[in-house]
């Protein structure tokens, strides 16, 4: 078992970084409890909770009966009574039985009680495609949560952010829906475990560029970076913004980036209709209209149920779809 030391640089996968964040939070605060389906002996189907029961005991990390509404509903009660539950939904589509608890209670408790009852809880959801999963295992469900006032919605795109953001989410006084791009679980990266927590709500420029801005989050960030690399070889300089947090939304960073280039493409896996990508386009257009040389475009999923897994490459926005959108940014007019 690895140590829970919080300092030093280490090469970790995103899965390991999340596991480390859980451990550190549990070690630092007795009120942090982890529960869900198969999170105990098995360590979760993605092994994010690996070793937690062994290290902290089965009152701190435990399996529940198989019922997502039950898991989230019980977490609400525990959060009302002094604990900080971190619950795992096994896959994106299997969080839907908990939707009522999430939208009617998790999201609204603070407001309904005029701030008297807060729910410091985290709902972890592995989401999106790209792992060859079968149906119901690949949904991009972020818009449902982002559309619900009262929920923070966070999604890291690399191991270091996964570590810091999960620690920040657990420390947050408000409920956080923590969306983990499962195709990035096994991507390794140098993580500074002692780095200061950035807090939730700040986007980051992942790559500098001057011609256009790609705005991405979670699983689409590596796609945007790859597209920028290809574009660079073709003589076009693309900037890449990683949102990290969908709610709160970092208008400041995103708009400053778009103003600096005058063109933007939003990259996301989810079906584009009424999506987070739509919201980004609307916000950028409202705020940056006079800096824009072309309408903001989207490179997103089609408006179809996720076609897992043989045709998932057709649905997922890849480098080509991103660069097609970039090509459409009215370059001949400038």
């Amino acid at each position, binding site marked *: 078992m690895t140590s829970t030391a919080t300092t030093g640089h280490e090469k970790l996968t995103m899965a390991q970084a999340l596991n480390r964040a859980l451990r550190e939070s549990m070690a630092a605060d007795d009120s942090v409890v982890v529960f869900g389906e198969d999170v105990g002996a098995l360590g979760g189907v993605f092994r994010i909770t690996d070793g937690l029961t062994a290290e902290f005991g089965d009152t701190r990390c435990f399996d529940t*009966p198989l019922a997502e509404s039950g898991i989230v509903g019980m977490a609400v009660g525990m959060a009302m009574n002094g604990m900080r539950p971190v619950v795992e939904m096994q896959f994106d589509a*299997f969080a*839907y039985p908990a939707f009522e608890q999430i939208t009617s209670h998790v999201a609204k408790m603070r407001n309904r009680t005029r701030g008297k009852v807060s729910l410091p809880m985290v709902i972890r959801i592995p989401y999106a495609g790209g792992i060859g*999963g079968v149906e119901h295992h690949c949904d991009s469900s972020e818009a449902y949560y982002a559309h619900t006032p009262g929920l923070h919605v966070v999604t890291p795109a690399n191991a270091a952010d996964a570590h810091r953001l999960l620690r920040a989410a657990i420390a947050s006084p408000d409920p956080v829906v923590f969306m983990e791009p499962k195709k990035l679980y096994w991507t390794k990266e140098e993580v500074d475990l002692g780095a200061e927590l950035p807090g939730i709500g700040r986007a980051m420029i992942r790559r500098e560029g001057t011609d256009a801005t790609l705005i991405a989050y979670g699983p689409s960030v590596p796609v945007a970076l790859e597209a920028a690399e290809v574009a660079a070889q073709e003589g076009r300089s693309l900037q890449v913004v990683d949102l990290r947090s969908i709610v709160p939304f970092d208008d400041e960073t995103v708009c400053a980036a778009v103003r600096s280039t005058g063109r933007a493409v939003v990259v996301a896996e989810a079906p584009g209709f009424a999506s987070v990508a739509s919201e980004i386009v609307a916000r950028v257009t409202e705020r940056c209209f006079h800096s824009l040389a072309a309408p903001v475009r989207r490179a997103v999923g089609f408006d*179809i149920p*996720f076609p897992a897994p043989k045709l998932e490459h057709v649905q997922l926005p890849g480098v080509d*779809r991103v660069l097609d959108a970039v090509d459409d940014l009215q370059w001949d007019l400038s």
Partner: protein
Amino acid sequence: MTRDLDLLLPSPHPVELIDPTGQTVAEATRELPDDAALLRAFAGLTTARRINDQASALARQGRLAVYPSSHGQEACQVAAAQVLTDDDWLFPTYRDTAAVVMRGVDVAEAFLPLQGAWHSGYDPHEHKTAPQATPLATQLLHAVGVAHAARLRGEPTVALALCGDGATSEGDFHEALNFAAVFRAPVVFLVQNNQYAISVPLARQSVAPSLAHKGIGYGVPGERVDGNDVAALLAVLGTAMARARAGEGPQLVEAHTYRMQPHTNADDSRRYRKDDEVAGWAERDPLARLETWLRQHDLLDDARLAAVTADADQLAARMRTELAGDATPEPAELFAHVYATPTPQLVEQAAVVADELSREDAHR
């Protein structure tokens, strides 16, 4: 109407007609199915076992995206298909592909989703078999609906709905029992209690006296059956189906069985259970006991066994050829069935995909 509690209570022990050593159980509470039914069940068990083992092999070779094996649960799979008439509906889960094939769905269609197709493979209406359901317990309510509609339409249909032990913890399981009872719907719920929900053992699922007892609170009679004894399953399910068909309402049947293999080929069951526990259940194997019984009753000899095995081999061979292909499905079809008439947006998007793919082809 209040119901007598005694009528709802399951028997104190699971119904068993042929014991694990292949002997007829003395003082059995039900009559043995007839010889023809047992011979048919034996052929079914042999085939179902081959389906499981062939599919697991194909999953290991990467021919299937994933396979949740029902190895060890074949008696449930076979009995579930065998008690149905052509009027009845089956509501299977992801683990019930063997039952789907026993129901008459061709392997080439039944395995399409596991191979990686985006759709359910077979035509549910053609086979009166719902698409295999992965979101746990959700299909149970659909079964109630199909059964209720059949009653309203004057059809003789009974719906048989399958789920696992873990699924009995989901809210939909309880809603389905209650709806079925309130509407007196002709539906039979078969819980394959294979002792685990992935890694979580039954003890973490429920502390009820048994899963069959869960019907009582809803006014649904419960029954427990040895899920590795196909004779007992045929008897218990047969009675439940007949009751439902006669308008006497739903029944909940809990079959005690065991998932001999990991949850799917992607699972590592050593993390949560010991090999000797698995070995103990191997002694309760559903095939071995029926074979012993049939031989003792002069219903099976080597020649007959060879014929049954040859049929199963043939099916396995068909699986190897049918499921070996790398046929990529047609992307344009992704836009054809989302709505009865594609929206204008989907028509546009289908054109985008066609354009993307044609340029990809041009690159090659």
